[in-house]
């Protein structure tokens, strides 16, 4: 038996042409039937009366009435059901279809229910799987010149992204992966895969990824064409949340703002500290870039909104560090076994020190001459009420302002 999907087509003409093709190949007794459901078409082609040009047609909307006329054996019931159906006096499909679902289920079980559905022309078989939708794509070719400039390439790719992202957005989908294909003057092609951390149709996000690729790659020849194809798509994340939760509703805008900052100033503009155990505070921290959707941010859908801390730290004065320890001039006075600062000059201005705690001595790096350090730290309160952090470099004998508490 050959099945043909006539949805959206002239099914009768399709059946006639298909029948003619089969007959032209030598099968002269072939038959065809057209119906709205597979079971009605099957019954029509096997048992039905062949109509014009060897095609039996079941009028639309009459599948159930058509099926009801056939004996129940036409549906090929399971051997277990045959005596049960006979005992119930069911001889035609119409007799079975007239029963209720519950009564069939109680008397005949799951197999009986399946048979009952077929008797009612309620055929749930998927003869044909749904046709896959074409994924968005766009391309651009030029013949009069060849491009090598990344900015001009980005301009062209941006135009393609407008079409692809527009198509994705219209479908309510986002792309996980885009395939960028460069056609080159040496008749070759170069493929680049762009991947986003989550399905998105945001053009700005993809432009950022394209720019990163163009900064990285080295093409062997000039470009004569570009093609962009969405190779993996998914439904866009639809997070459940409270519309009255302002943080939830503004997630997209916040992420876009952070993404623009990163595009404008580089990935090291938005950072988080990564701290080691180094004894020197100015060498303890490495600043690592954060993406707009870094895992630290556990907002609904947004990597910008931060997770609520389990217990928020109370307000306190914390140490602020000068980007580089600032050389200062210090006047000292003797105190026990050390020299204590009594005033210092920073930026041409003298600051008197009211109280000084210390020294806290830090030394190390003895095995690495480049990192040898020996410092005496003092916590000093100035007459202006600022708690500053001074240190004396014991190797060089110089004084520095390292930070202050604020």
């Amino acid at each position, binding site marked *: 038996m050959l099945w043909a999907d006539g949805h959206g087509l002239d099914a009768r003409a399709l059946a006639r042409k298909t029948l003619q093709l089969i007959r032209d190949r030598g099968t002269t007794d072939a038959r065809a039937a057209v119906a709205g459901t597979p079971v009605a078409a099957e019954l029509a082609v096997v048992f039905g009366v062949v109509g014009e040009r060897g095609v039996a047609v079941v009028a639309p909307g009459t599948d159930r009435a058509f099926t009801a006329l056939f004996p129940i054996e036409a549906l090929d019931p399971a051997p277990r059901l045959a005596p049960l159906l006979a005992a119930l006096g069911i001889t035609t499909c119409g007799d079975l279809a007239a029963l209720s679902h519950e009564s069939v289920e109680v008397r005949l079980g799951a197999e009986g229910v399946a048979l009952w559905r077929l008797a009612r022309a309620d055929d749930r078989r998927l003869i044909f799987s749904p046709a896959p939708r074409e994924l968005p794509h766009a391309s651009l070719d030029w013949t009069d010149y060849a491009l090598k400039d990344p900015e001009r390439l980005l301009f062209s790719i941006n135009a393609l992204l407008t079409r692809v992202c527009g198509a994705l957005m219209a479908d309510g989908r986002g792309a996980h992966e885009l395939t960028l294909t460069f056609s080159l003057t040496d008749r070759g092609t170069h493929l680049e895969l762009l991947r986003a951390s989550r399905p998105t149709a945001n053009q700005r996000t993809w432009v950022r990824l394209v720019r990163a690729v163009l900064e990285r790659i080295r093409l062997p020849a000039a470009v004569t064409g570009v093609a962009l194809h969405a190779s993996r798509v998914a439904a866009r994340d639809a997070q459940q949340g409270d519309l009255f939760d302002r943080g939830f509703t503004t997630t997209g805008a916040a992420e876009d703002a952070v993404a623009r900052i990163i595009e404008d100033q580089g990935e090291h503009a938005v950072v988080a500290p990564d701290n080691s155990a180094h004894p020197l505070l100015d060498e303890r921290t490495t600043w690592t870039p954060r993406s707009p959707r870094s895992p630290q941010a556990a907002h609904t859908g947004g990597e910008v909104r931060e997770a609520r801390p389990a217990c928020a730290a109370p307000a306190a004065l914390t140490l602020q560090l000068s980007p580089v320890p600032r050389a200062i001039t210090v006047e000292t006075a003797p105190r026990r076994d050390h020299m204590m600062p009594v005033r210092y000059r920073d930026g041409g201005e003298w600051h008197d020190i009211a109280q000084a705690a210390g020294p806290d001595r830090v030394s190390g790096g003895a095995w690495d001459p480049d990192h040898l350090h020996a410092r005496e730290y003092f916590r000093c309160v*100035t007459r202006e009420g600022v708690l500053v952090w001074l240190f004396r470099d014991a190797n060089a004998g110089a004084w520095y302002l390292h930070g202050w508490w604020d």
Partner: protein
Amino acid sequence: MASSVAALRALIEQRFPDAVPITRGIARPVASGIPEMDRALPKGGFPLGRLSVCAPHGGITAILRAACRNATRDGERAAWVDAGRTIAGAFWNDAALLVRPATLSHAVRAASELLHAGGFRLVVLAGAELAAPQVARLVRAAHEGGGAFVLLTEHSSMAALRLSARIAPEAYRWDHDPFGGPAHVRDVQLDIHVRALGWNARARFPLPVQSHELRLALESGLADRRGLPRTRLRAP
């Protein structure tokens, strides 16, 4: 007379809502989370959609970081633009977004983006002395985005709220060493002065001083065992 003044004020508030002093605004401001501080702020917090100016030092950073934490605790977002690059990474465990721009213009652009987006309830710009046009740009962005904008600077003519803090040298409370000298700062008393149109308030409250946890080991890989008690062996 009083009723006509009240009627006139109501009419002005209706026709020009942005011209209303922040003490009469209806939007819930950004609280600092410090009760004494919030009582001194009009409507209990930093106004939304407006510029607040805080003079640097005096514990202002602690107050603003508390406000950022308070905002994120409420499920909102906060951002800190560290133009001066003075935030010590070892003491930054806040939930707020930290931006470290390389130049002053980058700082202005970053703050403008964050304010304009409307997704950040509080944006703090620290370590930048801005020209008037730059401040105007940021004030406009704050107004459009609806978030609170706080600028740490000595001078600004466009602020809806001005805040200054002062710590007297004798306001530090010390733990003392065996010689009677200062050893460790326990806490400090802050004197706060808040001014806005139709508002003038002061507050005084203590804040702890976070230890800088200086590691005093000779090498970074070695534990510092100085000061640990010695175990005594019992005589048989």
